[in-house]
């Protein structure tokens, strides 16, 4: 019931000020404006007064009550809270929560316990950042300190039930195994979560238990392994859609890299084959086609770490599952590969399908240059080692490469000319549409390289050749129209110039006849 109180306040505060409310501040609050700082100037200014006046009546009354109860210690304390620039809804929660009020009072709290809007300036713990806390997804849904720490927000003294549900301080900082279970008290309870966010899954704990992190923490009691707060933080937790969240798609690489890119932290962790776990994944990812798309272009459709490894059930994909991970997005390439000769060969060698050619974290943007039977080409280098002197394969590779080069060259040649004709006022729209067809066909043809078969590849290449021919024909028609226009202009100018000359001669003759040469000197 107590937990619902802030929520009720939040809902209540959304209502507009009752009519007749003149925004007057209660006398006890008004008195705070008389307090002066060390420099002799009032601590609270006109801006603070204006802000307070805009608050709903019941929030102003709450503040007055806090002042009367001395949970709001004075002007400096109020100033610290007003610096948060809270919405009226958030202000209602803050001023009804004694935990926040007391722990945000710089005059009564030691730095180690002080909730500060600027922890650096007050030397308090970075975890006690009040600005972050009032943006926390839990706080914004009405869940405040007591929700996790226990106790009651309306008590004005510390009670023994605070932190009673946690392990003792000397244990809980060393042994982190309690954290997943603690968060799961709410997050694994569908009935409870329905009241806050019905769309949020409640299977995080069960997934976590099966994850590499979960196994290490819960089974092997390795408290270095990541648990909830390692990724989500504390006191400033935001949903994954928030750009400031540690689990926003663009923040995930750094969040994972916080541990996985730290050789010191990762020392001692090994892969299944016994080799040390590398720490270059983040560096590689940033250089990869996926990393550039996600981090540089802001394409949220590009995968971050969790899209391949999972979130709460994070595991390294096995050889057998890598291709399935890639197929989540690149399904067509996977289907073509399944029907190819390479499928059996890869299975025989126990090679991970996609990764074998494209790599893993540092996946570069594939180019047509990869398709080459030369020793520096992708095909050539692998075949030299595993299927030397296979003539048919070499010819196929050369055919793939030359076909793609032809299509790409045609596209690159025709597009600038199309743009040039468009600036000349010709209808370039059908040509652009045809060029787009060609572009799509090139993408399809590249995808069909994964069939490793001429027949399969030609299905894409044929569409490309047809689009190229159609574009050429449309361009030729446009060129012809351009010539027609140019010739029309030349003929028109010729005729008009002839007429102008005739008129000029006639004017000259008239001038001569009338003897007006002097007066016409300035004529055009």
């Amino acid at each position, binding site marked *: 019931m107590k937990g619902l109180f802030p929520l009720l306040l939040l809902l209540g505060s959304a209502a507009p000020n009752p009519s007749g409310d003149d925004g007057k501040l209660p006398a006890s609050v008004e008195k705070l404006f008389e307090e002066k700082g060390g420099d002799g100037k009032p601590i609270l200014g006109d801006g603070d007064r204006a802000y307070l006046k805009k608050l709903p009546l019941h929030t102003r009354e709450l503040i007055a009550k806090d002042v009367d109860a001395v949970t709001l210690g004075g002007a400096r304390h109020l100033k610290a809270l007003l610096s948060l620039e809270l919405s009226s809804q958030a202000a209602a929660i803050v001023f009804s929560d004694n935990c926040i009020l007391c722990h945000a009072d710089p005059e009564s709290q030691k730095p180690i316990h002080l909730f500060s809007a600027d922890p650096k300036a007050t030397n308090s713990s970075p975890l006690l950042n009040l600005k972050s806390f009032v943006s926390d997804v839990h706080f914004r849904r009405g869940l405040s300190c007591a929700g996790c720490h226990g106790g009651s927000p309306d008590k004005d003294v510390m009670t023994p039930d605070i932190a009673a549900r946690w392990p003792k301080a000397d244990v809980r900082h060393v042994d982190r195994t309690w954290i997943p279970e603690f968060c799961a008290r709410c997050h694994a309870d569908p009935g409870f979560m329905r009241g806050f966010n019905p769309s949020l899954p409640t299977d995080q704990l069960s997934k976590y238990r099966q994850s590499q992190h979960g196994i290490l923490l819960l089974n092997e009691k390795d408290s270095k392994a990541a648990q909830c707060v390692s990724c989500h933080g504390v006191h400033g937790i935001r949903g994954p859609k928030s750009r400031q969240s540690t689990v926003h798609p663009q923040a995930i690489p750094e969040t994972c890299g916080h541990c996985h890119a730290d050789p010191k932290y990762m020392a001692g962790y090994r892969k299944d084959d016994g080799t040390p776990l590398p720490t270059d994944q983040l560096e590689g990812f940033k250089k990869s086609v996926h990393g550039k798309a996600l981090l540089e272009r802001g394409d949220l459709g590009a995968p971050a770490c969790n899209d391949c490894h999972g979130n709460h059930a994070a595991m390294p994909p096995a050889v057998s599952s890598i291709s399935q991970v890639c197929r989540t997005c690149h399904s067509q390439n996977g289907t073509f590969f399944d029907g190819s000769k390479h499928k059996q060969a890869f299975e025989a060698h126990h090679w991970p399908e996609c990764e074998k050619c494209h790599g893993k974290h540092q996946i570069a943007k594939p180019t047509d240059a990869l398709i080459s039977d030369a020793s520096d080409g992708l095909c050539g280098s692998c075949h030299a080692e595993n299927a030397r002197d296979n003539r048919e394969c070499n010819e196929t590779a050369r055919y793939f490469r030359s076909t793609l080069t032809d299509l790409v060259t045609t596209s690159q040649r025709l597009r600038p000319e199309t743009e040039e004709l468009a*600036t*000349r*006022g*010709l*209808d370039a*729209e059908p040509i652009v549409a045809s060029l787009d067809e060609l572009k799509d066909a090139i993408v399809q043809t590249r995808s069909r390289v994964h069939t490793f078969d001429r027949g399969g590849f030609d299905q894409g290449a044929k569409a490309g050749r047809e689009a190229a021919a159609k574009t050429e024909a449309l361009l030729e028609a446009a060129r012809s129209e351009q010539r027609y*226009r*140019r010739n029309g*202009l030349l003929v*028109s*100018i010729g005729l*008009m*110039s002839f*007429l*102008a000359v005739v*008129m*000029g001669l*006639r*004017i000259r003759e*008239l*001038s001569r006849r*009338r003897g*007006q040469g*002097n*007066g*016409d000197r*300035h*004529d*055009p």
Partner: protein
Amino acid sequence: MTGAQSPAAPASTGERLYRWLDARFGLGRLVEFARHKEVPVGGHSMVWYYLGGATLFFFTVQLASGVLLLMYYQAGEQTSYESIRYITTKVPFGWLVRSIHCWSAHLMIVALVVHMFSTMMLKAYRRPRELTWLTGFVLFAIALGFGFSGYLLPWNELAFFATAVGTDSVKSVPVIGQWLLEVMRGGPDVTINTLYRFFALHVVILPLVMVAVVSTHLLFIQVQGMAKPMAHQAPSRPGLRFFPDFLLRDLLLWLVCLIVLSVLVYLLPYGPGIPGMEWELGKKANPLAPAYPGIKPEWYFLWVYQLLKEFPAHLFGMEGPQAALLVVTVLMGIWALVPWLDRRAAKGLPSPMFTDLAIAAIIFMAYLTLKAWDIGGKSADPSKLPDARATAWTCAWIVLGVSSAIAVLRILAYRQRWMFFSGAALLQVVLNGVFGVDYLIAGAVALVVVIAGVVLTSRKSPAARLEAPR
């Protein structure tokens, strides 16, 4: 036709037709009028006499191409953009007609502006041609109205947002601003109702008014004849016969204009790509889309657009745009009343003050227009805003260079000395552009110089002595 042939010779078909018409309509009087109609010669180049004709030519092209466009254009939310696209891509020579219409519109304004400034400099507005000047001024306003109303008709992104910004400035009119805005837009926002209004204005109301005012303007010219060069500038010389001598020259110029128009239409079918002078169709208007970046009006409105930007949000208790539009209205009012203000010209005396006023107006508008084009301030990164300081600096030096050259020419070739107006306009440019003084403060300083100049001139020496007769 003129009766010069031998009575024994049989009358030609043309002659018979003329006699038939003459018997019914008295054509003889007209022919007699035409035979004696002359164009004054001497005092200044005759080229200035052809500019009205060139403007009329471009207006005729506008009418003809506009009628052709009207055969395919369909005003409507689902049809305006589509029909223009259809005209430019599917209709035979549709691209040509649209491009001619657009190019000709701009060339008409160019010819009109040059015609107006030449009339100003030559004092052709002087008594008894005050009403000819006034009708010309009205024609100028109507031409601007044509440009503004026609801009929206393609119903593309640029047109939509430019119209939204343009019509929004009407709000600044005191008391009736909001009402006027809603009358113009057909509601509080730019919607398809605005398009319908602008369409009616562009193809019915303005052409009717334009034809009426052009006819009045031409009638005045026929009744009063073309203005002779100022008496103090030109000795009396026999004039040039209008028919056929001047008319042939006029037609020759029209032909040259047509050739220029054809070449421009072929080489630059969507305009020269200068902001305010481009008409590529682009995307269809979407009222819900974010505003089109870098919206600017057509080039002849750019000086007003820039002036609005130079004003602060509030000035002397007025809103900035309100104050700016007040300045524009006062300046335009002065311009319209020049024939009555210039009393010296009315008496046939030299009035160097008004010659200089025209030069000052050119400097004033040129500087603002160049600034509106962001000349010298554009960043290589298109997402960055132009550097206003760098723009002002570059534009000031351009204007200063060209104006100085013109001033030297005026002194040496025309022996003109009275330059307080143009000097003040240039002072404002230099203070604002070179020294970074606020535009309005620079304007106030310039105004003080102008007042001082006018007072000094009226006290010390008659302006007549300052401009040597030519």
